[in-house]
């Protein structure tokens, strides 16, 4: 028996056909739109959001040391020999500028007092403790290199491998043997305030100056004064008192004079009328915040001259 197809009325068939076609066309248009959207995303480089689960916080086990120094700039200073410097260059030095070659771009974040010599610090190295580390964070000294570490002293300059240079750890002095700099800035002394022998501090500091002259031949050396602590910190009864700091700074100035290197009284840039670090400059009375690091930085930028031989 032959199956006889049942036929719907023609208006129903036409309606169904129309609806099917309409839906198909809409769907096709939607698909093309989606594809076009994907192409646009690829062309503009918009990255997809990751669907990976949010990883949990990570905790770590202790390991090794650190501090940082930027790639060195190895050109010799255009002028200035440590042996030729005047005996003392203090707060208001009688500098006259020697000719310098090829000034480079000014440090990016240096506001306030304009730099006398843009690019001056590009071949400079700054040696110091945690306060110098702070200066590195908030400085405007261009491409200066920092050989600094927490708790650095005139002794640990030779013994603590706190410097990471070319992925190797070494002492500050080892780093200074490896790289040649155009200028050397040193600030040491606050961590030595508790030492029982002040003369040991001075003799060790003198040894550093001698080695700097040897390994950084021809580079002007600047001994920076120790920055003061806050009045509150000074009065707290610890080893960090502004009286001790003043005493140490007098000795450092004389040391600079004896060794014929420059002395920079950077403390004058950050102290208040009483000689203390203002309370608003620091949370612990010792380490400078960004604003006061900038004052320190501005002082250095304003004292960039190499003294003339006379």
């Amino acid at each position, binding site marked *: 028996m032959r199956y006889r197809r049942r036929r719907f009325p023609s208006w129903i068939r036409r309606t169904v056909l129309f609806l*099917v076609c309409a839906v198909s066309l809409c769907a*096709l248009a939607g698909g093309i739109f989606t594809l076009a959207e994907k192409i646009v995303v690829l062309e503009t480089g918009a990255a997809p*959001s990751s669907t990976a689960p949010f990883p949990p916080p990570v*905790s770590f086990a202790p*390991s090794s040391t650190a501090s940082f120094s930027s790639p060195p700039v190895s050109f010799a200073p255009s002028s200035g020999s440590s042996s030729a410097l005047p005996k003392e260059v203090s707060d208001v030095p009688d500098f006259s500028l020697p000719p310098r070659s090829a000034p480079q771009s000014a440090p990016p974040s240096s506001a306030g007092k304009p730099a006398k010599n843009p690019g001056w610090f590009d071949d400079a190295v700054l040696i110091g403790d945690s306060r110098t580390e702070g200066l590195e964070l908030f400085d405007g000294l261009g491409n200066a290199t920092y050989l600094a570490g*927490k708790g650095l002293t005139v002794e640990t300059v030779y013994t603590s491998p706190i410097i990471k240079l070319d992925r190797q750890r070494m002492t500050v002095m080892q780093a200074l043997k490896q790289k040649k700099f155009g200028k050397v800035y040193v600030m040491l002394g606050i961590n030595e305030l508790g030492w029982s022998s002040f003369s040991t501090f001075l003799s060790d500091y003198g040894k550093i100056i001698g080695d700097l002259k040897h390994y950084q031949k021809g580079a002007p050396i600047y001994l920076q004064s120790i920055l003061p602590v806050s009045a509150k910190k000074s009065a707290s009864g610890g080893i960090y008192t502004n009286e001790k700091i003043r005493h140490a700074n007098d000795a450092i100035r004389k040391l600079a004079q004896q060794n014929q290197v420059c002395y920079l009284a950077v403390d004058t840039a950050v102290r208040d009328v009483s000689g203390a670090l203002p309370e608003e400059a620091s949370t612990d009375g010792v380490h*400078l915040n*960004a604003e006061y690091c900038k004052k320190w930085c501005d002082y250095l930028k304003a004292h960039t001259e190499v003294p003339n031989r006379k």
Partner: protein
Amino acid sequence: MRKLFLITAVLFTAFLLLSAGGCSRKSPAKTADMDKIADEIVQQVKFTDQLSAINLKTVTKLYDLDSNSLVKAKVYESTGATAEEVAAFEAKDEKAAEAVRSAASRRVEDQKAAFQNYQPKEMAKLKTPLLVQKGKYVLLVVADDTAPAKDIADRFLS
């Protein structure tokens, strides 16, 4: 009539092929503003030290990173009195973010070594940092209590 159904079937097949990939992602790629995350963390999380933003050049020096691997970085550093820190990175891609995450881990290890004899009480913060990576985003927070920072990160990055 049969031809018409054939055409309809072809159209449906074409639609399915074209829309297969597109249906899996209905919205454009979501992006996170790491500047905002870092700013909000600095404002909302309790820090004992004063934190200040550092420039990108210093960030790349401090973390030993190639600046080409970064799209954006906002890093706040403490004065040195504490180990407190907020670092938010948007890397070029997920692979670069892995490298940034490793660099952040090294930074924490370096800080531990630096603080262990200098300010031993900071070690508690450094032992429990918040270090998260989601896609190309990396966040490091060193603070006494990083739970509020985790909430902010979840809100912005999830």
